[in-house]
């Protein structure tokens, strides 16, 4: 992995799509506007040889920043061992174009982001909850979602807990 190479890629893309390239500890981060995400990811695959969306996740900056979320993609190329982080700011309820058409491996990662943060993806082939139960309410990794706990069920309090059904169905 050569750092200058990736910095150059990030700088070139930042200029083309009106983004910003920075260095954040051990990652080269390319911040992009949401409307150019698909074009930029296509360029990453077709022009710069990135082969896989290694990781897709999000960060919630609730009450700290607007727009509220940052989507964080990590793209990787097996041939050149290049790693590039792409960040896109997303407001609450705003739909993000799915990159599954470009990197199919992002499928489950986008489902996880949808499940955990409630960010909807347009053009995703199968956008369902993945880790939480089908009928779960809320998105656990949002910062306004409390950590919470579940009371342990024993025979003496079984009916009481069943009656409460605090969050989600047991």
């Amino acid at each position, binding site marked *: *992995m050569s750092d200058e190479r990736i910095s150059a890629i990030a700088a070139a893309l930042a200029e083309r799509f009106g983004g910003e390239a920075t260095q*954040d*500890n*051990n*990652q080269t*981060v390319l911040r992009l506007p949401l409307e150019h995400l698909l074009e930029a990811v296509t360029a990453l695959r077709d022009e710069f040889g990135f*082969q*896989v*969306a*290694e*990781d897709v*996740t999000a*960060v*919630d900056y609730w009450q700290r920043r607007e727009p509220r979320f940052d989507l*964080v993609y*990590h793209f990787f190329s*097996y041939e050149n*061992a290049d*790693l590039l*982080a792409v960040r896109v700011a997303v407001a609450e309820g705003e739909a993000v174009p799915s990159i599954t058409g470009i*990197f*199919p*491996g*992002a*499928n*489950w990662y986008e489902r996880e982001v949808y499940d*955990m943060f409630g960010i909807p993806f347009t053009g995703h*082939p*199968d956008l*369902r*909850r*993945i*880790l*939480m*139960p*089908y*009928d779960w309410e809320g998105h*656990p*990794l949002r910062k306004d*979602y409390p*950590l919470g706990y579940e009371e342990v069920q024993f025979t003496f309090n*079984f009916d009481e807990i*069943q009656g409460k059904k605090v969050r989600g*169905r*047991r």
Partner: protein
Amino acid sequence: MLEPIEVSAEELQHLVSERALKGETVLLNMGPQHPSTHGVLRLLVELDGERVVNVVPDIGFLHTGIEKNMEAKRYWQAEVMTDRMDYLNPIGNNLAYCLAVEALTDLQVPPRAQAIRVILAELQRISSHLVWLGTHLLDLGATSLFLYTFREREFILDIFEMVSGARMMTTYIRPGGLWRDVPAGFEEAVHEFIKLFPRRLKQYEALVTKNPIYRDRTRHIGVLSKEDAMRWGVTGPMLRASGVAYDTRKARPYCGYEQYDFEIPTQESGDVYARYLVRVAEMRQSLRIIAQALDNLPAGPVRSDDRRYMPPPREEIGVSMESLIHHFKFWTEGFSPPKGSAYAAVESPRGTLAVFIESDGTPRPYRVHVRTPSFANLQALPVMAKGAMVADLVAIVGSVDIVLGDVDR
């Protein structure tokens, strides 16, 4: 008392073929309680006779909210949870987490700690592959090998117990180095293991590699092409069995892996048998790395002395007031890395394991995300299983080497 969850047919319509809706194919639930699913994995299998038309993996039964929990813990407390994710690879999980914290804080790890990390990570890889080999063969009906592989795994777990006091949940690797230096007798124990293990590995191969039943059940089964493997984000032995010579230890070296001489075993056929060959060859390479690291084990400290992020040494606390205050503050308040984010990847026995940490400058991580290899590898299951026989599905799921704790976190 427990009500069934009702899912409407429309919700699942896009997952099955039109023939299933007409009743021409059979929908079968495999799991979540099924011995061949290695934990709690549910597969919705659409069958045409004995042929698999489609598989829809349903995961999340072991979801424990570790990422959410970590946000409420201090950095040194959050590490304990990483052991619990991939319970066959706790050392590797600790390592990935610590590398990410070290990237955030710019901690320098002393060479002795690096070498011990490498030895333990490779031992862990062997032990994980041993569990895989035993259980995979068990799925296919070969019961005896399971007992042999667990005998050797016990040897490795004894070494872990010797260094950390715990057989599985070690938390031995800490940000900035190790918990403490290895005890006397560690080097001898590892020497004994690397002397004994090649012989045992030969015995396993004699049982499996040319076994006609095993070959019949695994060759040309669950084929994953090179292109598909790369597109779906599959990593580790599965990727290498499909012909991509990629290994995080070579491509993005960490812990000084660049100084060790080892090869990346690859196979071209991409089937279940190729994955077996790759994993066995990897065990041999791990032995090579361990032998090199053990022969050149440097002396010196095993933890960084950067006092911003490390507690003071024990012997100082009794004589220095400042150290006592620092010790108290460190273990109550924790340390605060600067604002920013870091991403560190290691080669786990299952593939690329990466940890993403975002820090907001407080003693608790603002966001931790773990890119687990099993999650991405399992995603490719429908690609491999379409068209296979239902009995082969067991072999294919086994060859993915999933750990559900790693998938669901």
